[in-house]
């Protein structure tokens, strides 16, 4: 399920997310996808209201880090497994929209990187050879191997132990994919940290119902063929969950006195400054992550925060970055995007 297929409940009906709201999902997704080796990315946005921007962006961050990262890791593992299969193994290869039958011939380094060599045949063309990159490895599936189906353990007398798992909503399951859910509910990973107004974030993340339509259903906005949940189901904000639950996001109040301690212990992939106060006061402690700086024009500290971000831009920006891939902001929303060296 993609980020563009999200609905929200209003007056008993489902409505597709408005453009501005989708924008923040994609902005979160975008900044999470940015490389962070020697440099990091900073995006500043001037908004007419702070409402939902941080919650939606954090959802986009977690979505990216859960679905996309997992796909990359899976593809790499799968590629290695395919490389080790004997030449002549029967496979299927997803080529465009068609799943072609064929054989795996092995791997080659002749393109400056390791690629799989796959020979397919179809009604239109016989014996076509494809050189498949590691990132596309999941398109190649062996047909000879049988899926191992694990049998349920019955009558085991061994005492079951484990940790309490926060249940996952159908919304989160549909959005992130069933295969991600086990890791998602069991493993804590700080992908994102928001610094701003906790009560507003708590309400936005936990009280508004979002949904994705069931894939097969023919639906109308009023029907019930939707998988429901909240943004919190995806964000999994540590502060809003019970102790010991697997989290993906943390939220800190801008007026908290513990920010320095929390920053020392946390290294999120993305820090979202939800408003000017947190950015003006605490930005120096979060320089190891990407920044998404969301500034509400109506805030008292807006001018000071924009001045600070402009100073950051002048002082720390390295080179020019292409804004071609940055999601285009809604009309009237101003955005700045640059990169700086990691410190």
């Amino acid at each position, binding site marked *: 399920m993609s980020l563009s297929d999200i609905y929200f409940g209003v007056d008993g009906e489902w409505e597709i997310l*408005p453009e501005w709201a989708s924008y923040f999902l994609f902005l979160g997704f975008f900044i999470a996808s940015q490389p962070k080796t020697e440099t990091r990315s900073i995006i500043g946005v001037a908004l007419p209201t702070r409402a*939902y921007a941080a919650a939606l962006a954090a959802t986009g961050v977690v979505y990216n880090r859960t679905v996309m990262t997992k796909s990359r890791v899976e593809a790499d593992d799968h590629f290695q497994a395919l490389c080790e299969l004997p030449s002549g193994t029967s496979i299927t290869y997803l080529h465009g929209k068609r799943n072609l039958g064929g054989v795996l011939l092995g791997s080659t380094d002749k393109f400056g990187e390791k690629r799989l060599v796959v020979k397919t045949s179809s009604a239109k063309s016989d014996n076509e050879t494809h050189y498949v990159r590691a990132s596309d490895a999941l398109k190649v599936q062996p047909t000879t191997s049988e899926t191992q189906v694990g049998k349920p353990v019955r009558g085991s007398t061994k005492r079951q132990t484990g940790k309490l798992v926060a249940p996952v909503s159908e919304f989160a399951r549909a959005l992130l994919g069933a295969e991600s859910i086990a890791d998602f509910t069991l493993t804590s990973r700080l992908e994102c940290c928001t610094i701003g107004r906790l009560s*507003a974030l708590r309400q936005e993340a936990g009280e508004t119902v979002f949904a994705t339509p069931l894939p097969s259903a023919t639906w109308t906005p009023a029907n019930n063929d939707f998988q429901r949940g909240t943004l919190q189901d995806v964000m999994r904000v540590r502060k809003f969950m019970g102790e010991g639950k697997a989290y993906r996001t943390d939220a800190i109040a801008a007026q908290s006195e513990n920010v320095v301690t929390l920053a020392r212990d946390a290294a999120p992939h993305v820090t979202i400054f939800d408003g000017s106060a947190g950015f003006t006061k605490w930005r120096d402690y979060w320089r190891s992550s990407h920044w998404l700086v969301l500034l509400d*024009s*109506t*805030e*008292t500290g807006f001018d000071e925060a924009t001045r600070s971000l402009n100073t950051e831009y002048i002082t720390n920006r390295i080179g020019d970055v292409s804004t071609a891939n940055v999601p285009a902001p*809604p009309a*009237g929303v*101003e955005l700045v995007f640059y990169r700086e060296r990691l410190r």
Partner: protein
Amino acid sequence: MIDTSLPAATAIYSCRSAVQVEHHRLPHPAFKEFSFRLRTFERELGEEVENEYWKPFLRSLKRYRFEVTAAPLGFGNPIVMPADLLGWLHAQLEQCTMLYPKFAASSRKLLQSLDQLVEGNDNPLLDHISRLSGSARRQKLTVLLKESRLITTFEDTLSSRHLINLIEVVGEGQLRGSECFDEIVCIGPSRWFASYIFSAPRAPRIQVLHFDWIKDQWRDSAVFIGSAKSQKDSGSDWQRIADEARYDTEEIVKKAAEEPSDQLEVEELLPILDLDQISNRLAQSSSVSNSEQDEAEARLFQLEDGSGVFLDADEGSSWLVIDLGKEEEARVKRINVSSIEPGMFVLLREVGGGDYIVPVADTILGQQASNARGLQRHWKSKLRDAVQSSSSYTVSMQLKSHGSVRANEGNVRNWMSARNIRTDDERDFTAIMRFVGLGEETAKYWKNAALIDRAHRQAGGHIRKLLLRQVLKADLRDLERLGRMRFELSESGGGQMIALRVVACSPTINRMPLAHIGRLFELEGDVWRG
């Protein structure tokens, strides 16, 4: 309850993407004549502007010019031009003929213009709004006034014209929230208002209503240096400016170049306030002999209703504020005075002023209050007497010889001050007791100071809790709209408190007598000097 729902946020984004700002420049030859005569007269006065004879004269007229520009009130509205003020102005004119004959003719002409305005009692801003409110609308027409203090007066005018049900009057603070309107009419030039009124608009259509002799244009400027918008702005990016009809970029630039010289700059009409200068002047005038006895570092704040207040700015001093931008539980709290910013509301005792903690602490102390305060005053007066008869330096040296560990001139001044309850270190307190001849009763005095200290802490927490409860129950729209609100703390002994919005803070700190701290005073005399 969510502050701003998704549909409400969608409405805000829609307003932002669709906003059209239109300027309506309304003519009024008589008011223009008055305004320019006032400017000419002020220039003619030259250095005499600072003369105590002319200062109040000019101040009254400038205030009048501003208020009838900032609110759609009749030119003869008695709130902006009371009959006794008009009479006083004419009396000044009579004297002027004898005292300053060279200014008599021009001041007479000026007052003739004023008389004509007051007598006519019309105002094209009001007529324009009446017409707008009459057209078919789904919602009330929303009128934004720059000065919250004029809202009630304007509402009275609307009531008298039977328009109050058709028009909603708002202050700037209300346009930060989630509510959107059909159309907002700003009274006065756009540069008078915070930029978010136009950059984060709460209506898809904004009309800026002002007199045609005021120079004004709104520019939708970029805020980030590196944004795509700032690249576009580097040229002449005059955007969405309209003057009944919309101009394209070239026309606007051309129009700006051809700006007629008979226009007043927006800034010329605004009240000018040099808080630094006022703070320095008041500090000098209130410096008295023996002032070191009861002075404290203080910062001057300009408040919403034209008043000012000095707040204790000594290191570690804090004051109770309401900050509507904070989480509910943190909205009422004591913060360091250096952290108080425009937009926050400071809480002050309405009657008597001064420290609001003391009366509540006395209620907590109950019957012990009188005796406890008496004992405090006793040792402090002895210490003060000693400083008066020698110096704080000499006393600090003597305290050291009695075993004090932190005695120095500053600390001695602090210890003898009424706002300080006791020393941090008991050894310093013991030294003071020995020095003032109360050595044998040290334990009693120390215990007494601890009792007062505890009562003050309890009082602070209690007041905060009571206020928070009231703030959570209060209609914060009114607080935002009017910039002031009263809170009743009588049950706790705190009396009535008033929250006033901070408009500006003085960057400098001066030593002020303790009695002046936390007490409201009128800044009026200083506001209209410019």
